Protein backbone atom coordinates (compact mmCIF):
# COMPACT_ATOMS: atom_id res chain seq x y z
CA UNK A 1 0.00 0.00 0.00
CA UNK A 2 2.99 2.27 0.26
CA UNK A 3 3.53 1.98 -3.50
CA UNK A 4 0.00 2.96 -4.40
CA UNK A 5 1.27 5.72 -6.66
CA UNK A 6 0.98 3.91 -9.97
CA UNK A 7 0.86 6.22 -12.94
CA UNK A 8 -1.15 5.46 -16.09
CA UNK A 9 2.08 4.68 -17.92
CA UNK A 10 2.77 1.71 -15.63
CA UNK A 11 -0.86 0.60 -15.65
CA UNK A 12 -0.60 -0.48 -19.28
CA UNK A 13 2.55 -2.49 -18.61
CA UNK A 14 1.32 -5.12 -16.14
CA UNK A 15 4.08 -7.66 -16.67
CA UNK A 16 6.90 -5.16 -16.62
CA UNK A 17 6.97 -5.00 -12.85
CA UNK A 18 6.62 -1.94 -10.71
CA UNK A 19 2.91 -2.23 -10.08
CA UNK A 20 0.76 -4.72 -8.17
CA UNK A 21 -1.74 -6.56 -10.38
CA UNK A 22 -3.24 -8.36 -7.38
CA UNK A 23 -3.21 -5.19 -5.29
CA UNK A 24 -1.10 -6.94 -2.64
CA UNK A 25 2.54 -6.42 -1.82
CA UNK A 26 5.27 -8.94 -2.56
CA UNK A 27 5.61 -9.98 1.08
CA UNK A 28 1.91 -10.61 1.50
CA UNK A 29 1.74 -12.67 -1.68
CA UNK A 30 4.63 -14.79 -0.53
CA UNK A 31 2.90 -15.34 2.80
CA UNK A 32 -0.18 -16.48 0.89
CA UNK A 33 2.02 -18.75 -1.20
CA UNK A 34 3.36 -20.34 1.97
CA UNK A 35 -0.10 -20.64 3.49
CA UNK A 36 -1.58 -22.38 0.45
CA UNK A 37 1.27 -24.91 0.32
CA UNK A 38 1.14 -25.44 4.08
CA UNK A 39 -2.62 -25.93 3.88
CA UNK A 40 -2.00 -28.68 1.33
CA UNK A 41 0.59 -30.26 3.65
CA UNK A 42 -1.89 -30.31 6.52
CA UNK A 43 -4.65 -31.67 4.33
CA UNK A 44 -2.24 -34.42 3.29
CA UNK A 45 -1.80 -35.35 6.94
CA UNK A 46 -5.49 -35.16 7.77
CA UNK A 47 -6.46 -37.18 4.71
CA UNK A 48 -3.85 -39.79 5.64
CA UNK A 49 -5.51 -39.90 9.06
CA UNK A 50 -8.87 -40.35 7.32
CA UNK A 51 -7.36 -43.14 5.23
CA UNK A 52 -6.20 -45.07 8.30
CA UNK A 53 -9.48 -44.46 9.99
CA UNK A 54 -11.62 -45.66 7.09
CA UNK A 55 -9.31 -48.65 6.72
CA UNK A 56 -9.98 -49.56 10.38
CA UNK A 57 -13.48 -48.13 10.53
CA UNK A 58 -14.78 -50.97 12.73
CA UNK A 59 -12.01 -50.76 15.33
CA UNK A 60 -10.86 -47.13 15.56
CA UNK A 61 -10.50 -45.67 19.09
CA UNK A 62 -13.34 -43.42 20.27
CA UNK A 63 -11.92 -39.94 20.91
CA UNK A 64 -14.45 -39.22 23.68
CA UNK A 65 -12.99 -42.09 25.69
CA UNK A 66 -9.40 -41.02 25.11
CA UNK A 67 -9.45 -37.31 25.90
CA UNK A 68 -11.41 -37.10 29.11
CA UNK A 69 -9.27 -34.88 31.30
CA UNK A 70 -9.85 -31.37 32.52
CA UNK A 71 -7.40 -29.44 34.73
CA UNK A 72 -8.14 -29.70 38.48
CA UNK A 73 -10.98 -32.15 37.90
CA UNK A 74 -9.38 -35.46 38.74
CA UNK A 75 -11.36 -38.56 37.96
CA UNK A 76 -14.16 -36.57 36.38
CA UNK A 77 -15.16 -37.81 32.96
CA UNK A 78 -15.06 -34.60 30.89
CA UNK A 79 -14.80 -35.51 27.24
CA UNK A 80 -13.97 -32.67 24.89
CA UNK A 81 -14.47 -29.78 27.30
CA UNK A 82 -10.76 -29.11 27.42
CA UNK A 83 -10.20 -29.11 23.66
CA UNK A 84 -13.27 -26.92 23.28
CA UNK A 85 -11.65 -24.50 25.71
CA UNK A 86 -8.40 -24.67 23.72
CA UNK A 87 -10.35 -23.90 20.55
CA UNK A 88 -11.91 -20.84 22.18
CA UNK A 89 -8.48 -19.67 23.38
CA UNK A 90 -7.05 -19.94 19.88
CA UNK A 91 -10.02 -18.23 18.23
CA UNK A 92 -9.77 -15.46 20.78
CA UNK A 93 -6.06 -14.97 20.13
CA UNK A 94 -6.96 -14.80 16.45
CA UNK A 95 -9.37 -12.00 17.27
CA UNK A 96 -6.74 -10.02 19.20
CA UNK A 97 -4.41 -10.51 16.24
CA UNK A 98 -6.92 -9.09 13.76
CA UNK A 99 -7.55 -6.22 16.18
CA UNK A 100 -3.79 -5.55 16.18
CA UNK A 101 -3.82 -5.51 12.37
CA UNK A 102 -6.74 -3.10 12.43
CA UNK A 103 -4.96 -0.85 14.93
CA UNK A 104 -1.94 -0.98 12.61
CA UNK A 105 -4.04 0.39 9.79
CA UNK A 106 -4.85 3.34 12.03
CA UNK A 107 -1.13 3.71 12.97
CA UNK A 108 -2.06 3.28 16.62
CA UNK A 109 1.16 1.99 18.16
CA UNK A 110 -0.14 1.60 21.72
CA UNK A 111 -3.08 -0.53 20.61
CA UNK A 112 -0.98 -2.68 18.29
CA UNK A 113 1.41 -3.35 21.18
CA UNK A 114 -1.42 -4.27 23.55
CA UNK A 115 -3.20 -6.61 21.13
CA UNK A 116 0.05 -8.26 20.05
CA UNK A 117 0.80 -8.96 23.70
CA UNK A 118 -2.64 -10.54 24.18
CA UNK A 119 -2.09 -12.65 21.06
CA UNK A 120 1.26 -13.91 22.35
CA UNK A 121 -0.30 -14.81 25.70
CA UNK A 122 -3.16 -16.66 23.99
CA UNK A 123 -0.73 -18.59 21.81
CA UNK A 124 1.46 -19.51 24.78
CA UNK A 125 -1.57 -20.72 26.76
CA UNK A 126 -2.61 -22.83 23.80
CA UNK A 127 0.83 -24.45 23.41
CA UNK A 128 0.87 -25.13 27.15
CA UNK A 129 -2.58 -26.74 26.94
CA UNK A 130 -1.41 -28.93 24.12
CA UNK A 131 1.61 -30.03 26.16
CA UNK A 132 -0.74 -30.95 29.01
CA UNK A 133 -2.95 -32.89 26.60
CA UNK A 134 0.12 -34.77 25.37
CA UNK A 135 1.20 -35.52 28.92
CA UNK A 136 -2.16 -37.13 29.74
CA UNK A 137 -2.16 -39.05 26.48
CA UNK A 138 1.38 -40.38 26.99
CA UNK A 139 0.79 -41.29 30.62
CA UNK A 140 -2.42 -43.19 29.95
CA UNK A 141 -5.08 -43.94 32.46
CA UNK A 142 -6.09 -47.59 32.68
CA UNK A 143 -3.46 -49.64 30.91
CA UNK A 144 -4.19 -52.58 28.63
CA UNK A 145 -2.82 -55.80 27.18
CA UNK A 146 -1.56 -56.16 23.65
CA UNK A 147 -1.83 -59.29 21.52
CA UNK A 148 0.77 -60.53 19.09
CA UNK A 149 -1.24 -59.01 16.23
CA UNK A 150 -1.12 -55.62 17.89
CA UNK A 151 -4.71 -55.68 19.14
CA UNK A 152 -5.47 -53.92 22.42
CA UNK A 153 -7.43 -55.70 25.17
CA UNK A 154 -8.95 -53.36 27.74
CA UNK A 155 -10.60 -54.35 31.02
CA UNK A 156 -14.15 -53.55 32.03
CA UNK A 157 -16.20 -54.26 35.14
CA UNK A 158 -19.00 -56.53 33.91
CA UNK A 159 -21.49 -55.14 36.46
CA UNK A 160 -20.95 -51.40 36.05
CA UNK A 161 -19.56 -51.32 32.51
CA UNK A 162 -16.80 -48.99 33.68
CA UNK A 163 -13.16 -49.31 32.67
CA UNK A 164 -10.84 -50.87 35.26
CA UNK A 165 -7.19 -49.90 35.64
CA UNK A 166 -4.49 -52.56 35.74
CA UNK A 167 -3.31 -51.43 39.16
CA UNK A 168 -6.77 -52.20 40.58
CA UNK A 169 -6.54 -55.94 39.97
CA UNK A 170 -3.08 -57.02 38.80
CA UNK A 171 -1.60 -59.69 41.08
CA UNK A 172 1.80 -59.23 42.63
CA UNK A 173 4.20 -61.92 41.45
CA UNK A 174 7.78 -61.16 42.46
CA UNK A 175 10.22 -61.45 39.55
CA UNK A 176 13.73 -60.21 38.99
CA UNK A 177 13.26 -59.13 35.40
CA UNK A 178 15.35 -56.03 34.72
CA UNK A 179 15.16 -53.46 31.97
CA UNK A 180 17.51 -54.54 29.22
CA UNK A 181 19.94 -51.71 28.61
CA UNK A 182 23.03 -51.44 26.48
CA UNK A 183 25.18 -51.45 29.60
CA UNK A 184 23.84 -54.69 31.09
CA UNK A 185 23.14 -56.83 28.03
CA UNK A 186 23.76 -56.93 24.34
CA UNK A 187 25.29 -53.59 23.41
CA UNK A 188 23.21 -53.30 20.24
CA UNK A 189 19.88 -54.14 21.86
CA UNK A 190 17.94 -51.63 23.88
CA UNK A 191 14.60 -51.63 25.64
CA UNK A 192 12.44 -48.82 26.89
CA UNK A 193 11.31 -48.88 30.52
CA UNK A 194 9.33 -51.95 31.56
CA UNK A 195 5.62 -51.61 32.35
CA UNK A 196 4.68 -51.73 36.03
CA UNK A 197 3.06 -55.15 35.63
CA UNK A 198 3.98 -58.28 33.74
CA UNK A 199 1.53 -60.17 31.53
CA UNK A 200 1.51 -62.99 34.10
CA UNK A 201 0.51 -60.63 36.89
CA UNK A 202 -2.36 -59.21 34.83
CA UNK A 203 -3.50 -62.69 33.81
CA UNK A 204 -3.45 -63.94 37.40
CA UNK A 205 -5.32 -60.89 38.63
CA UNK A 206 -7.86 -61.26 35.85
CA UNK A 207 -8.50 -64.92 36.69
CA UNK A 208 -9.00 -64.03 40.35
CA UNK A 209 -11.56 -61.26 39.70
CA UNK A 210 -14.81 -62.84 38.49
CA UNK A 211 -16.44 -59.54 37.59
CA UNK A 212 -13.81 -58.52 35.02
CA UNK A 213 -14.31 -58.91 31.29
CA UNK A 214 -12.31 -57.86 28.23
CA UNK A 215 -13.24 -55.11 25.84
CA UNK A 216 -11.68 -55.44 22.39
CA UNK A 217 -11.09 -52.90 19.64
CA UNK A 218 -14.12 -53.83 17.52
CA UNK A 219 -17.07 -51.44 17.41
CA UNK A 220 -20.71 -52.50 17.09
CA UNK A 221 -23.32 -50.81 14.87
CA UNK A 222 -24.13 -48.26 17.57
CA UNK A 223 -20.52 -47.13 17.79
CA UNK A 224 -19.71 -48.75 21.13
CA UNK A 225 -16.77 -51.07 21.76
CA UNK A 226 -17.79 -54.73 21.91
CA UNK A 227 -17.37 -56.29 25.36
CA UNK A 228 -16.64 -60.02 25.49
CA UNK A 229 -18.33 -62.46 27.83
CA UNK A 230 -16.38 -63.81 30.82
CA UNK A 231 -15.69 -67.16 29.09
CA UNK A 232 -14.56 -65.49 25.85
CA UNK A 233 -12.44 -63.08 27.90
CA UNK A 234 -10.65 -65.92 29.70
CA UNK A 235 -9.84 -67.46 26.32
CA UNK A 236 -8.84 -64.16 24.76
CA UNK A 237 -6.44 -63.11 27.50
CA UNK A 238 -4.12 -65.97 26.53
CA UNK A 239 -3.37 -64.13 23.27
CA UNK A 240 -1.75 -61.30 25.19
CA UNK A 241 2.00 -60.88 24.83
CA UNK A 242 2.61 -57.50 26.43
CA UNK A 243 1.37 -54.90 28.88
CA UNK A 244 0.79 -51.39 27.54
CA UNK A 245 0.54 -48.36 29.79
CA UNK A 246 -0.06 -45.06 28.06
CA UNK A 247 0.84 -44.34 24.48
CA UNK A 248 3.93 -43.80 22.40
CA UNK A 249 4.78 -44.22 18.73
CA UNK A 250 4.95 -48.02 19.02
CA UNK A 251 2.30 -49.00 21.59
CA UNK A 252 -0.99 -47.37 22.40
CA UNK A 253 -3.30 -48.45 25.21
CA UNK A 254 -6.27 -46.63 23.65
CA UNK A 255 -6.48 -48.91 20.63
CA UNK A 256 -4.99 -48.78 17.17
CA UNK A 257 -1.35 -47.66 17.18
CA UNK A 258 -1.92 -45.47 14.14
CA UNK A 259 -4.25 -43.35 16.25
CA UNK A 260 -1.39 -42.41 18.58
CA UNK A 261 1.02 -41.95 15.67
CA UNK A 262 -1.30 -39.54 13.91
CA UNK A 263 -2.17 -37.80 17.15
CA UNK A 264 1.49 -37.11 17.90
CA UNK A 265 2.27 -36.21 14.32
CA UNK A 266 -0.65 -33.94 13.45
CA UNK A 267 -1.15 -32.16 16.76
CA UNK A 268 2.63 -32.01 17.11
CA UNK A 269 3.05 -30.44 13.70
CA UNK A 270 0.27 -28.00 14.49
CA UNK A 271 1.73 -27.28 17.91
CA UNK A 272 5.07 -26.57 16.27
CA UNK A 273 3.31 -24.08 13.99
CA UNK A 274 1.74 -22.39 17.01
CA UNK A 275 5.11 -22.32 18.75
CA UNK A 276 6.87 -20.74 15.76
CA UNK A 277 3.91 -18.37 15.42
CA UNK A 278 4.42 -17.26 19.03
CA UNK A 279 8.14 -16.74 18.38
CA UNK A 280 7.45 -14.68 15.26
CA UNK A 281 4.78 -12.72 17.14
CA UNK A 282 7.30 -11.92 19.88
CA UNK A 283 9.81 -10.64 17.30
CA UNK A 284 7.14 -8.45 15.69
CA UNK A 285 5.98 -7.34 19.14
CA UNK A 286 9.44 -6.01 19.98
CA UNK A 287 9.72 -4.41 16.56
CA UNK A 288 6.46 -2.60 17.29
CA UNK A 289 7.76 -1.46 20.68
CA UNK A 290 11.03 -0.07 19.32
CA UNK A 291 9.04 1.71 16.63
CA UNK A 292 10.36 -0.04 13.50
CA UNK A 293 6.99 0.09 11.77
CA UNK A 294 6.28 3.61 12.96
CA UNK A 295 9.44 4.69 11.11
CA UNK A 296 8.58 2.53 8.11
CA UNK A 297 5.25 4.30 7.88
CA UNK A 298 3.05 1.22 7.83
CA UNK A 299 2.29 -1.89 9.89
CA UNK A 300 2.15 -4.36 7.04
CA UNK A 301 4.48 -6.74 8.84
CA UNK A 302 1.83 -7.15 11.55
CA UNK A 303 -0.63 -7.97 8.79
CA UNK A 304 1.66 -10.65 7.33
CA UNK A 305 2.34 -12.35 10.63
CA UNK A 306 -1.40 -12.04 11.29
CA UNK A 307 -2.11 -14.05 8.14
CA UNK A 308 0.14 -16.82 9.44
CA UNK A 309 -1.49 -16.72 12.86
CA UNK A 310 -5.00 -16.96 11.45
CA UNK A 311 -3.88 -19.84 9.29
CA UNK A 312 -2.70 -21.71 12.39
CA UNK A 313 -6.12 -21.08 13.92
CA UNK A 314 -7.78 -22.28 10.73
CA UNK A 315 -5.81 -25.53 10.79
CA UNK A 316 -6.78 -26.10 14.42
CA UNK A 317 -10.44 -25.79 13.50
CA UNK A 318 -9.96 -28.75 11.17
CA UNK A 319 -7.76 -30.74 13.55
CA UNK A 320 -10.39 -30.22 16.27
CA UNK A 321 -13.14 -31.53 14.00
CA UNK A 322 -11.34 -34.55 12.63
CA UNK A 323 -9.56 -35.64 15.80
CA UNK A 324 -12.07 -34.89 18.50
CA UNK A 325 -15.53 -34.50 17.01
CA UNK A 326 -15.95 -36.82 14.03
Amino acid at each position, binding site marked *: *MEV*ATTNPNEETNVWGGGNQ*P*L*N*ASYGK*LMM*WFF*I*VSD*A*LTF*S*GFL*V*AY*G*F*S*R*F*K*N*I*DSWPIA*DEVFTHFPFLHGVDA*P*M*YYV*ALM*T*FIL*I*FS*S*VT*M*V*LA*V*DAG*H*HMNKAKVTFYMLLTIIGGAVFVGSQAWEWKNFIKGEYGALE*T*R*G*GQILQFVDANTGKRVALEAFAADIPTDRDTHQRSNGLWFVNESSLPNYSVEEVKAGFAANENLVIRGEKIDE*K*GHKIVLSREASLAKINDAVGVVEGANLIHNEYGNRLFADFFFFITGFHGFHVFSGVVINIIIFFNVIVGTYERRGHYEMVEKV*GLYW*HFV*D*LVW*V*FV*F*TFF*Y*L*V
Partner: protein
Amino acid sequence: MAHADQKLAIFRGLLKFKSNVQKIWGVLIFLSIVTTIEVVLGIIKPESLMSMFFGMKILNWIFIILTIVKAYYIAWDFMHIRDEKGSLKGSIVLPLIILIPYLAFILLVEADYIFEVMNAGFISWNF
Protein backbone atom coordinates in the same frame (compact mmCIF):
# COMPACT_ATOMS: atom_id res chain seq x y z
CA MET B 1 -5.39 -2.34 0.60
CA ALA B 2 -6.23 0.63 2.74
CA HIS B 3 -8.57 0.28 5.66
CA ALA B 4 -11.08 2.60 4.03
CA ASP B 5 -12.29 0.05 1.50
CA GLN B 6 -13.04 -2.81 3.89
CA LYS B 7 -16.34 -4.50 3.30
CA LEU B 8 -18.29 -4.40 6.53
CA ALA B 9 -21.22 -6.69 5.77
CA ILE B 10 -21.38 -10.44 6.45
CA PHE B 11 -24.07 -13.08 5.71
CA ARG B 12 -24.51 -11.64 2.18
CA GLY B 13 -25.32 -8.20 3.51
CA LEU B 14 -27.78 -9.42 6.12
CA LEU B 15 -25.61 -8.08 8.91
CA LYS B 16 -23.84 -4.75 8.42
CA PHE B 17 -21.29 -3.43 10.87
CA LYS B 18 -20.40 0.18 11.48
CA SER B 19 -16.67 -0.34 11.84
CA ASN B 20 -14.07 -2.99 11.19
CA VAL B 21 -13.54 -3.53 14.92
CA GLN B 22 -17.25 -4.14 15.38
CA LYS B 23 -17.22 -6.62 12.52
CA ILE B 24 -14.34 -8.52 14.15
CA TRP B 25 -16.30 -8.92 17.40
CA GLY B 26 -19.39 -9.91 15.42
CA VAL B 27 -17.47 -12.64 13.65
CA LEU B 28 -16.01 -13.81 16.97
CA ILE B 29 -19.51 -14.17 18.40
CA PHE B 30 -20.61 -16.09 15.32
CA LEU B 31 -17.58 -18.43 15.48
CA SER B 32 -18.16 -19.01 19.20
CA ILE B 33 -21.80 -19.91 18.59
CA VAL B 34 -20.81 -22.40 15.88
CA THR B 35 -18.13 -23.96 18.11
CA THR B 36 -20.59 -24.21 21.00
CA ILE B 37 -23.10 -25.98 18.74
CA GLU B 38 -20.37 -28.41 17.68
CA VAL B 39 -19.32 -29.17 21.24
CA VAL B 40 -22.90 -29.59 22.47
CA LEU B 41 -23.70 -31.94 19.58
CA GLY B 42 -20.47 -33.83 20.25
CA ILE B 43 -21.36 -34.35 23.90
CA ILE B 44 -25.05 -35.18 23.46
CA LYS B 45 -24.67 -37.15 20.21
CA PRO B 46 -28.41 -37.12 19.42
CA GLU B 47 -29.69 -40.54 18.41
CA SER B 48 -31.61 -39.07 15.46
CA LEU B 49 -28.37 -37.91 13.83
CA MET B 50 -26.58 -41.25 14.11
CA SER B 51 -28.04 -42.75 10.94
CA MET B 52 -25.77 -43.13 7.96
CA PHE B 53 -25.82 -40.81 4.99
CA PHE B 54 -23.44 -41.22 2.04
CA GLY B 55 -20.93 -43.35 3.95
CA MET B 56 -20.86 -41.28 7.14
CA LYS B 57 -23.09 -40.46 10.07
CA ILE B 58 -25.28 -37.39 9.59
CA LEU B 59 -23.70 -35.95 12.75
CA ASN B 60 -20.25 -36.15 11.16
CA TRP B 61 -21.51 -34.42 8.02
CA ILE B 62 -22.89 -31.63 10.24
CA PHE B 63 -19.50 -31.30 11.97
CA ILE B 64 -17.67 -31.06 8.65
CA ILE B 65 -20.10 -28.50 7.23
CA LEU B 66 -19.89 -26.37 10.38
CA THR B 67 -16.09 -26.59 10.21
CA ILE B 68 -16.07 -25.33 6.64
CA VAL B 69 -18.41 -22.51 7.65
CA LYS B 70 -15.97 -21.53 10.41
CA ALA B 71 -13.02 -21.79 8.01
CA TYR B 72 -14.85 -19.50 5.59
CA TYR B 73 -15.35 -16.76 8.16
CA ILE B 74 -11.80 -17.03 9.52
CA ALA B 75 -10.37 -16.75 6.00
CA TRP B 76 -12.81 -14.13 4.76
CA ASP B 77 -12.93 -11.80 7.73
CA PHE B 78 -9.81 -12.46 9.81
CA MET B 79 -7.48 -13.04 6.89
CA HIS B 80 -9.29 -10.30 4.92
CA ILE B 81 -9.84 -12.33 1.77
CA ARG B 82 -13.16 -10.51 1.51
CA ASP B 83 -11.23 -7.30 0.77
CA GLU B 84 -8.82 -8.80 -1.76
CA LYS B 85 -9.13 -8.64 -5.51
CA GLY B 86 -11.08 -11.42 -7.22
CA SER B 87 -7.97 -12.74 -8.94
CA LEU B 88 -6.09 -13.12 -5.64
CA LYS B 89 -9.15 -14.69 -3.99
CA GLY B 90 -9.33 -17.26 -6.78
CA SER B 91 -5.62 -18.03 -6.75
CA ILE B 92 -5.74 -18.79 -3.04
CA VAL B 93 -9.03 -20.61 -2.74
CA LEU B 94 -9.39 -22.54 -6.01
CA PRO B 95 -6.27 -24.78 -5.70
CA LEU B 96 -7.39 -25.73 -2.21
CA ILE B 97 -11.04 -26.46 -2.97
CA ILE B 98 -10.07 -28.48 -6.04
CA LEU B 99 -7.11 -30.46 -4.68
CA ILE B 100 -8.21 -31.23 -1.12
CA PRO B 101 -11.61 -32.80 -1.90
CA TYR B 102 -9.97 -34.74 -4.73
CA LEU B 103 -7.26 -36.12 -2.46
CA ALA B 104 -9.80 -36.91 0.25
CA PHE B 105 -12.06 -38.65 -2.26
CA ILE B 106 -9.44 -40.98 -3.77
CA LEU B 107 -7.83 -41.88 -0.45
CA LEU B 108 -11.08 -42.53 1.39
CA VAL B 109 -12.44 -44.69 -1.43
CA GLU B 110 -9.19 -46.66 -1.40
CA ALA B 111 -9.31 -47.01 2.38
CA ASP B 112 -12.88 -48.26 2.20
CA TYR B 113 -11.80 -50.84 -0.37
CA ILE B 114 -8.94 -52.04 1.87
CA PHE B 115 -11.37 -52.29 4.77
CA GLU B 116 -13.70 -54.46 2.68
CA VAL B 117 -10.83 -56.73 1.64
CA MET B 118 -9.76 -57.26 5.25
CA ASN B 119 -13.37 -57.56 6.41
CA ALA B 120 -14.13 -60.24 3.86
CA GLY B 121 -11.27 -62.24 5.36
CA PHE B 122 -8.85 -62.32 2.46
CA ILE B 123 -6.14 -60.96 4.73
CA SER B 124 -6.03 -61.51 8.45
CA TRP B 125 -4.71 -58.70 10.59
CA ASN B 126 -5.52 -60.26 13.91
CA PHE B 127 -3.15 -63.17 14.23
